[in-house]
């Protein structure tokens, strides 16, 4: 018997990539959140956050996109789509970083806020810094890992997963959701799901990020380092919260295989896929079809997929 859950409604920002290339990550994340009583309500209208935070002091133009998104949260409250809920949840580590950092800047600078509000004169609201950006992992931590554990129906016992943090969840320090040098949040999630976290030296090392556009060979090399070090440490799979890391680590395995013929593919999971599996949710929400390195064989060997039903995920 599962514990009764009271549903909480919180505004949710998907970001572009979770809506197309990585829609399988969104499906699993929304389903896993729902299983924990979190009804994530997508903003009715939204734009791309910009993916990278503009670092120069005078470039306000590039902070308009995130500000638009904050205004949508205000509108959701105004229109009673949520009740007095100014937290905005994201799963994508890059969106999270841009949104939280922009919010910080706007909270600190009345001048910047005024300039952007003035520029966006077609908007019906102005932004005063009320929105709070929250990563789903932070929400899980605040619920308590024991609560996550209680929800697990099929513990991922014996599954050796290397948590890969990358950059945007942790850095800079005042933006990150955990200690920038010694994070534990993904390990704790994995442990509550019954899996075995595998520590490896490159878990905080950048995968090359957007350099994947002009220089895929470079990113293949970086990804090869990360993946092979994880494998050496005993990992059977990798998990991450960033769709760009997931793309670089998973889809660049094609280039890795060309360069390093001895390399054996290793599945890369979005953290929410592992949650969905451990929670015993229907196989359709696992979203296993959108991968390069096939995760199904590993999952089937471990007995997490039912052999009778088709293996294709959502």
């Amino acid at each position: 018997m599962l514990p009764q859950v009271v549903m909480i409604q919180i505004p949710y920002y998907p970001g572009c990539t979770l809506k197309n290339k990585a829609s399988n990550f969104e499906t699993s994340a929304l389903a896993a959140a729902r299983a924990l009583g979190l009804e994530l309500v997508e903003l009715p209208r939204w734009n791309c956050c910009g993916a990278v935070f503009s670092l120069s002091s005078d470039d306000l133009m590039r902070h308009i996109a995130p500000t638009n998104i904050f205004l949508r949260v205000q509108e959701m409250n105004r229109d009673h789509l949520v009740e007095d809920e100014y937290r905005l949840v994201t799963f994508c580590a890059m969106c999270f970083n841009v949104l939280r950092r922009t919010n910080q800047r706007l909270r600190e600078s009345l001048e910047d806020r005024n300039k952007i509000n003035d520029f966006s004169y077609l908007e019906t609201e102005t932004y005063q810094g009320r929105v709070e950006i929250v990563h789903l992992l932070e929400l899980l931590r605040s619920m308590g890992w024991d609560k996550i554990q209680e929800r697990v129906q099929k513990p991922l016992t014996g599954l050796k997963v290397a948590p890969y943090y990358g950059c945007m969840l942790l850095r800079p320090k005042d933006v990150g959701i955990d200690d920038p040098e010694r994070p534990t949040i993904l390990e704790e999630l994995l442990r509550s799901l019954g899996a075995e976290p595998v520590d490896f030296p490159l878990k905080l090392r950048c995968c090359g990020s957007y350099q994947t556009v002009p220089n895929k060979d470079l990113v293949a090399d970086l990804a090869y380092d990360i993946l092979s070090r994880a494998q050496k440490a005993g990992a059977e799979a990798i998990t991450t919260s960033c769709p760009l890391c997931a793309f670089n680590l998973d889809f660049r395995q094609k280039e890795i295989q060309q360069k390093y013929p001895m390399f054996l593919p290793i599945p890369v999971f979005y953290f929410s896929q592992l949650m969905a599996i451990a929670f015993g949710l229907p196989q359709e929400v696992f979203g296993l079809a959108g991968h390069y390195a096939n995760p199904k064989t590993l999952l089937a060997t471990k007995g997490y997929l039912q052999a009778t039903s088709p293996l294709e995920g959502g």
Partner: protein
Amino acid sequence: MNELEKDMLPQAVMITIYVLSRQYHVPAGSTILTALEYAGFKLKKGVGCREGFCGACASLYRLQGDYKLHGGLGCATVVQPEMQIVQLPYTPAPKAIYHLEELEPVPEVFTQLYPELYRCLSCNTCTKICPQDLQVMDYIQAAVRGDLEQAADLSFDCIQCGLCSARCPAEITQFNVALLARRLVGKYLAKKGKYVEDRIKEVEASKFTAGYQELQDLSPEDLKKRYFERELNNLIY
């Protein structure tokens, strides 16, 4: 200018406007196009249907005491005192070459054919200038996340005047991206209407040939008369 208009002119209240920074006195209540003609401009380009449909007469203007740059259609925007006007009938725009039959209605069409789309800053400048009051930034953002149907839906009333593209700091060609979205939705995703297929059959069976011939044989005067007498309310779109 018809007789009625000519009769009215002497009594009309005159206002001052500026075209290409030169001062002109034109009748209040004129549209930008009629004001330009009154001022002596011969419009050969930058004018089309005069009904707000063709998008040929895009104009930029500023009003007195207002820093904002406005966009409007010359045929549908009424001049105001001290208005500064320039026509911008065309914006140079890259247009991807594709065969609709060879494309699929998938998000990747945008990354392939219009990769510069991903330079969008979401600054909303396009929406501010749009003379059709479209949510231009929203349809571009729908395209960015691969939502073809929303991109097509939000851009449905686009008349390709080009002002969005002229103003865009990311140098995107919004209207061509939207055209691609609408074409793909029209061809692959939208529900097929049986009446369209029926009408195409009727056209192919020459049902309307005689009617067209009749119109073509009319004198310009008779044709005008027929045009203005048509029963708008009975038209089926």
